[in-house]
């Protein structure tokens, strides 16, 4: 784009200005809630009461964060959301790892070891991306019961893996479709078998799409509320459910600052993942669309 030579007319300058103004305006609209949340979470309650949402804190304090983490009441107990925060991790980490691994293997088979009906199989798999969660709540509850996984962390991991596979398969399949078949042919002639080709040839070049899959799965599973509320017990609740309970627990005054701090804590991991790996996310999504 930059190397296109264009004459800058006053009209062009004006339209450029309008474009930037709109972009900045939209960015502000998007950032506003985050700013208010942050500001509110470090204000003492007295400063919140006047309703001056955007006012800077006079006496900033981390007390609401500490309360949210370890003392706030979620339902009957008052232990904060800290424990549930780790609950979420113990659901998310295995679920992301397993679903990404299976997705990679599926994508590998669907592109490099095509079998009769593999296209139909892939189409059905894609269909899995569009199944509404609500539809499977009851059957899934029965299934988890049969498996003896009701209300357990393992059960939630299973649910998220099952739902995630459709997406991760899609990601990896579309990435591996761009890997030349000759690469796999060469490895076959060199004496590598099914798993060795996957491990030694394909996985090492899959970094961009692994990042995409991990970010996608991490955000989806971390932010999940429905499955968390439906299939967990009190001890295995993910942080999203705990946050809801915290906000809805009404004993006396509503502590907005604590609520906001808890919401920030719950949102932080996905935020961090995006900040750290966001550029790889975009790069991975567009990889394969352009020949390398």
């Amino acid at each position: 784009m930059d190397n296109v030579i264009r004459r800058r007319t006053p009209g062009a300058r004006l339209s450029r200005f309008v474009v930037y103004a709109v972009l900045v305006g939209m960015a502000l609209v998007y950032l506003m809630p985050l700013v208010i949340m942050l500001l509110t979470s470090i204000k003492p309650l007295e400063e919140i009461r006047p309703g001056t949402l955007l006012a800077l804190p006079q006496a900033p304090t981390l007390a609401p964060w500490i309360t949210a983490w370890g003392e706030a009441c979620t339902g009957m107990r008052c232990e904060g959301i800290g424990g549930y925060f780790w609950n979420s991790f113990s659901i998310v980490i295995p679920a992301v790892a397993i679903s990404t691994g299976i997705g990679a293997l599926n994508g590998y088979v669907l592109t490099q070891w095509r079998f009769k009906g593999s296209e139909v199989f892939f189409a059905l798999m894609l269909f899995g991306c569009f199944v509404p969660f609500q539809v499977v709540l009851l059957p899934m509850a029965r299934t988890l019961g049969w498996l003896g996984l009701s209300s357990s962390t393992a059960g939630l991991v299973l649910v998220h893996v099952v739902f995630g596979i459709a997406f991760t398969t899609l990601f990896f399949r579309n990435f591996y479709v761009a890997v030349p078949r000759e690469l796999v042919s060469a490895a076959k002639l060199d004496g590598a078998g099914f798993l060795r080709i996957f491990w030694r040839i394909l996985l090492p070049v899959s970094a961009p799409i692994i990042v995409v899959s991990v970010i996608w799965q991490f955000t989806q599973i971390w932010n999940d509320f429905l499955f968390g509320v439906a299939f967990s017990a009190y001890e295995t609740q993910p942080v999203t459910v705990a946050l809801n309970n915290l906000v809805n627990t009404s004993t006396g005054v509503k502590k907005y600052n604590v609520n906001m701090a808890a919401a920030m804590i719950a949102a932080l991991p996905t935020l961090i993942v995006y900040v750290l790996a966001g550029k790889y996310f975009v790069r991975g999504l567009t990889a394969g669309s352009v020949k390398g």
Partner: protein
Amino acid sequence: MATLQLKQVVKEFGDARVIKGVDLEVHDREFVVFVGPSGCGKSTLLRMIAGLESTSSGDIVIDGERINEVAPADRGLAMVFQSYALYPHMTVEDNMGFSLRLAGVAKAQRREKVLAAARILQLEPLLDRKPKALSGGQRQRVAIGRAIVRNPSIFLFDEPLSNLDAALRVKMRIELARLHDELDATMIYVTHDQIEAMTMADKIVVLQNGLVEQVGSPMELYHHPRNLFVAGFIGSPKMNFLEVRVIGAGPDGVTIELPSGATCEVPVAGEGLAAGSTLTLGIRPEHLYESEQAVVEGEIVVIERLGGETCLYLQAGDDSMTVVTDGDVAHRVHDKVSLAFEPRRAHLFDAEGDALPSLHRHPLAAMKRGENRASSSPTPDDQ
């Protein structure tokens, strides 16, 4: 020592027959080129030999052993691909040594073999680089090096030069020919480029629609094409075809009448041909020359001057003709020229497109590429 036989080899994809029964014999240390237009099945045939495609029916035999069900890695073959297919995350050395590593060869031995192959191809300075830091020609050499390291009984090449620019292609062509001599290996090479086929092959296999049209040395295919397809495919510019009428046929050849009304006797076996029947006359552009005889007359439509030679594109009645002539001719577009040819240089094809067998074998027809230098330049004149 490595010989390869294909016996009635067939490949079907669903209902589509891609290879329709191919018989072929490849001798030890032979350089065989599969050539044909795109979609003729040449690459599929190569992948079947490599074991990358299954064989629907027929036998593939290497050194007397049927290998249809043998895994690709265990066939003793190595293949060089059009896209080079180098492992992008490995260095040149690891690329070349990958097969040895999988086979469990110790590191020191591996390095030794890789270095030996790298020396042949002058790849030593590049061993620590990744493929993306290499030029196209270097990548191609690494791909060949990876094949050499495996010490295969047969090398397979799948259009290895088509991704290179013209100058590099000529260079690699010569390098491959040198490699063939140096390694003393059996090589099978697939290309759509008839010049690559002509320059490198001991034996050319012309394929079309999954069938072998003709097998022979380059000079045999050039001088004795078996049918219209081979005649048109081998040689550049393409052979001229004219419809002619039979006047008579005798033991010395077939007498024909050209569209211009001129007659000549072509020395091919055609006894029993009825006077008045039509045949197709084939004459190569380089075998036409200007002459008062005026066997063919035409108007120049386009002139291509290459310096050393000139291509004239003519309109002769309803026929388009191509003539390759001297670089110094002074003709201009729209000039009229009259041309003649030596009857023994002409080919005749019947209504089915099959060539009438020539009564004289060209003396170079049985010559192989390797003999070119050794033999004491025989005259092309056979009469």
